[in-house]
């Protein structure tokens, strides 16, 4: 396994060019092209803003201002996460031709989906930056240094999950559909459209069990709230757990690798 893990480094050129291809191919032929990477998260934000500011203004937390910016801090990383996992569940089947007909390292495929979605996430960051400036949110520069750490933890966590989901879907095609619904539930079980402080006392421990809660809170604390970043212990713990998840995912992937060419 560790031998194969080492091979991953050799594939970085391949991963790089496949990510580039993915990004290029995604918007090829559409009028706005690459701008969709900016527009998509903005439109998504607009939908949620509409729901919680116009349709259901009563639910909206009063003390969180500006609410749209708060939501965006969680929504953007969530989009990266959920798109990656959902796409990863399909990636081996979509790449069946490669796996069956070419000597191709299959683990490259889930990596490519996660990295490609990460690039979209990065492209959304300037929107947050602009909003921060616009709303004149006080920024604690020291806290901002934590941002790369949060991104790294999320990356490892997402990769781990992608490596588990991708090979299992090959054997159980239903997983793809189950995942779609699971992700919707997961979204609402994460403090993204509501702050953690609004969660009922009894349900807090449940939210704490949700790994993405800590990623969302970390993003919110670093980008949205002023004051020192107090969630770092949780974040580092999640980082450790993510590494274990990643290794477990890679182990599973490696075990099932030989079956891909026949099952895809």
């Amino acid at each position, binding site marked *: 396994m560790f031998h194969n893990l080492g091979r991953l480094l050799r594939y970085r*050129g*391949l991963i790089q*060019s*496949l990510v580039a*291809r993915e990004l*290029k*191919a995604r918007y*090829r*032929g559409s009028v706005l092209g690459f701008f969709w990477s900016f527009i998509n998260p903005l439109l998504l934000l607009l939908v949620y803003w509409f729901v919680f500011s116009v349709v259901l203004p009563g639910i909206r937390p009063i003390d969180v201002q500006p609410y749209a910016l708060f939501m965006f801090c969680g929504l953007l990383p969530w989009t990266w996460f959920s798109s990656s996992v959902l796409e990863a569940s399909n990636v081996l089947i979509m790449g069946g*031709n*490669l*796996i*069956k*007909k*070419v*000597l*191709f390292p299959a683990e490259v495929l889930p990596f490519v989906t996660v990295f490609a979605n990460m690039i979209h996430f990065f492209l959304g960051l300037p929107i947050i930056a602009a909003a921060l400036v616009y709303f004149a949110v006080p920024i604690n520069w020291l806290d901002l240094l934590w941002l790369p750490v949060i991104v790294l933890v999320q990356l490892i966590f997402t990769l781990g999950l992608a490596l588990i989901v991708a090979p*299992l879907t090959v*054997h*159980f*095609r*239903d*997983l793809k559909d*189950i995942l779609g619904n699971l992700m919707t539930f997961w979204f609402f079980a994460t403090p993204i459209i509501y702050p953690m402080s609004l969660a009922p006392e009894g349900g807090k421990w449940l939210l704490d069990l949700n790994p993405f809660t800590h990623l969302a809170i970390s993003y919110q604390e670093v980008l949205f709230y002023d004051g020192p970043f107090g969630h770092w212990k949780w974040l580092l713990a999640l980082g450790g757990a993510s590494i274990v998840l990643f290794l477990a995912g890679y182990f599973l992937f490696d075990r*099932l690798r*030989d*079956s891909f*060419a*026949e099952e895809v």
Partner: protein
Amino acid sequence: MTHAIEIDSVSKVYRRFARRRQFATLKSALLSGSLISDLRPDETFSALRDVSLAVPQGQTIGVIGPNGSGKSTLLKLVAGITKPTSGTVSVNGRISALIELGAGFHPEISGRENVFINGIMLGLSKREVTRKFDEIVEFAQLEDFIDAPVKTYSSGMYMRLGFAVAINVDPDVLLIDEVLAVGDQGFTHKCLDKFAEFRRRGKTILLVTHSLGLVERFCDEAVWLDGGQVKATGDPKRVVDAYLIDVEEDEEQYIASGDAKARDATEAAVDETADPPDMFQATEGRWGSREIEIVDVTLEGEDGDASHVFPSGARMSIRVRVKAEQPVADFVFGIGLFNAEGVCCYGTNTDLEELKSDRMAGEGEVVFTIDTLDLVAGTYKLDVAVHKRDGYPYDYHRLLYTFRVKSRTNDIGIFRPRHRWTFPTNIRFTGPLE
């Protein structure tokens, strides 16, 4: 001599799922606790059984065999795409597998970008692809289209580009799976030239093909796979001949059983008073009053054995057993020969050849001998009939007998006149001119 490919008692077992298992889902697997056991094979199918093969470096090996004999599985094992169930496969040097051309192409992006990504997938570095880029594009003859998205390519262009990239990986071992059928004549020749160049440079080639001529011309050795096992290996000509004989035997059986089926069907549906169907409609059938009955028809080759496959130009005899319960005075024997498209190649009868019928009683055998079966390769069907001079049928067998003409020459048409070429001394050929 070092071996480029060593296959040591390799077996490959594919798993097949019973119907019940096929629809197993994660939920049901979890509920019944069979998650782990479902990931294990239950019903199995052996694609390869105990295959051993050693290919010395620089050799070109042709793998032949009928569909489903395990040729492609063997190639995939050598390429490392699948792992053997038991046994070992070892390959020395860089492999390039031409199993499916352009397998990694993304339809939305340009040919240029695809060449880079495909090259990197096949193990080249970005710099190597840059260096070889012009050569690849030139080989694929796609200079004008290289910046168009691949989805706009014709299938030929797609294949050519895939081939050009794969061949320019500069492998030590080249695996080819029936890919020469893709391009036009010109491109096929280019590919063959490229293979010849590979051979000159001492590369190893493993070629899976149904083109037996290619194996004979091109390979140092041939391997004949059948039912997942090596049936013969060695000199290409010898192996190909052995294979052809085997194919012929299979064809014999196939034709014989097909004919028997057609006759059974007409036997069941026979209505002796029925009007004959339109003579120009090429459907099988049998009709007639049976005052004279055709009991049996056999085809015979030069050796006098019953056969269904004949070499072009050989002798063929049609033996027709006939029987008349009562003496008959008015009768004509006829034979018609049709090709697979239903075109009448030849037809004659005793009346046309001015033989006047006199008397027939009891049982006997009529033999129609064709001394030289001057037909091109293909499948032919026979009409055999006995009728009155005015056409009233006693027993008409329409297209109920099939035979095949085989030939090493791929000439076209129906009839092959006896011929020869004559050339002046200043026009010379090399090759097997007789």
